[in-house]
């Protein structure tokens, strides 16, 4: 009797959980082997090269600054817009493509999935950053060849750190908004408003009201993190970065994680 009853249940008590490394590898694959993900990474890389070419042509014809830093900045301009979208799609596509059911059935510990996604996003950011640095290198050499001068490697530790940190913040910012909203269009719209509309409003508010000009540096995460390009930061600037970072990164992310933990999987 008992031997007949046993096959009804599956004893998984001895089965080990999915190793975190595998979850990360899966999330990384998910971000590039779908049409949307592959195109997004492809477009980011492609448009970065186009931006470099345009900058090279303009810089050569106008005899502009052809330093390594300015070439990397040209591709950063592009990737700072598209990396957040990548961060958003990492999270929200689980809901829009209805893969969340499979994902969370195979790994019911949702937070591990979210952290794996975060690591996948940071890996892709690192890839884009490395690509931008490499392409910048090629274009500095091209620039110096066209201009007949020795390449200008001005970039500096501060510029490099500022570049890496800002790109990562951009990706994580998108990621946090996507966790909060769990909806691709909504997250993209809110991110764009945050990135392009809010700085103007902050500037306008500061110009009109003195009290607001004192508050603005503490809540304007973008200008606070842009300061990282000109290190070293003063103690006040560090605190402004921390406070505005809590407002724009930590709070949406925490609420978002709480939401994912409880969200109905459809």
């Amino acid at each position, binding site marked *: 009797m008992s031997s007949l009853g046993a096959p009804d249940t599956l004893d998984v008590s001895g089965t080990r959980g999915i190793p975190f490394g595998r979850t990360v590898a899966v999330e990384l694959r998910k971000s590039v082997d779908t049409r*949307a993900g592959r*195109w997004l990474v492809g477009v980011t890389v492609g448009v970065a090269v186009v931006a470099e070419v345009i900058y090279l042509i*303009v810089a050569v*014809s*106008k005899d*502009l600054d052809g330093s390594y830093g300015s070439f990397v900045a040209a591709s950063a301009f592009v990737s700072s*817009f*598209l990396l957040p*979208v990548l961060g*958003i*799609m990492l999270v929200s596509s689980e809901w*829009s493509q209805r893969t969340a059911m499979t994902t969370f059935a195979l790994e019911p510990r949702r937070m591990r999935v979210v952290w794996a996604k975060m690591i996948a996003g940071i890996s892709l950011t690192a890839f884009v950053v490395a690509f931008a640095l490499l392409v910048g290198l090629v274009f500095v050499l091209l620039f110096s060849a066209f201009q007949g001068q020795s390449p200008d490697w001005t970039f500096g530790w501060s510029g490099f750190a500022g570049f890496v940190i800002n790109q990562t913040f951009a990706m994580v910012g998108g990621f946090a908004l996507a966790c909060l909203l769990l*909806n*691709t*269009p*909504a997250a*993209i*719209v809110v991110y*764009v*408003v945050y*990135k*392009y*509309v809010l700085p103007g409003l902050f500037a306008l*508010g500061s110009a*009109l*009201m003195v009290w607001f000009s004192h508050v603005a540096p503490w809540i304007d995460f973008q200008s606070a993190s842009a300061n990282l390009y000109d290190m070293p930061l003063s103690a006040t600037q560090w605190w402004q970065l921390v406070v505005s970072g809590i407002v724009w990164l930590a709070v949406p992310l925490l609420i978002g994680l709480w939401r994912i933990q409880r969200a109905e999987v459809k």
Partner: protein
Amino acid sequence: MSTAVTTSGLDVSQTPRTPFGRLVSVELRKLSDTRAGRWLLIAIAALTLLVLVIQMWVVVAQNTHVTFNDFLQGMNTPMGILLPVLGVLSVTSEWSQRTAMVTFTLEPSRVRVIAAKLVSLLVISVLALVIGLVLASFANVLYGAMSGNSVVWGSVGKLAFFYLLLYVFGMATGFAFGALFLNSPAGIVVYFVYSFVFPGLFALGAALMDWFSKLQPWIDFNTDQNGLIDGTIHGKGWAHLVVAGLIWLALPLAVGIWRIRRAEVK
């Protein structure tokens, strides 16, 4: 024998096609009775109200002299950003929510569906204009009462026409990008790149290169629309608007409609 054969088919040759008015009303309903659409409309209304309240508070506190047009401009910020998103989603949601199969089965003439969608967007534009004018008028009168300054109206009729054009252009451009990509994130991202990133690039190019500064007004649809926003457009400005509109509105719309007519419905 022959009667048995004829009864197996359904004779719809006498059935009138779906009237266009019904298609339009269905498309209008689709814009507002889904969660995404309804929230987008609520967000637009709420943000517009919020902007007006903040603007009122600031101008009264600072005793700034403002006109009816200033309130219209303030209101245009949220509407100008979010209405085009509604335009994008009105097309792409058919694909992302997989309703295209039902839509095009009930009305196989896809061009009629597209036309109905465009008319429904036009209706929303008019609605947005009416709401906007009422709110801005109310704000202007309230401003006069609260600040004690004289109320400046300007040519309301002309401004109303300009803002209607703005909303129609914004929605139609969003619709065009949506039709071009048939994918919500791609349509929204490209729309925002076009409306937030390109004007900066165009201005930069114009500042650097003389020949480009002559070309810029003819290809920069966003910057051309500023003449509508502040009501100063005249003469050559209209020509710029038409040419740039052909590039950014008519061309993507034409390609997009061609694509929808041939797209596989999944």
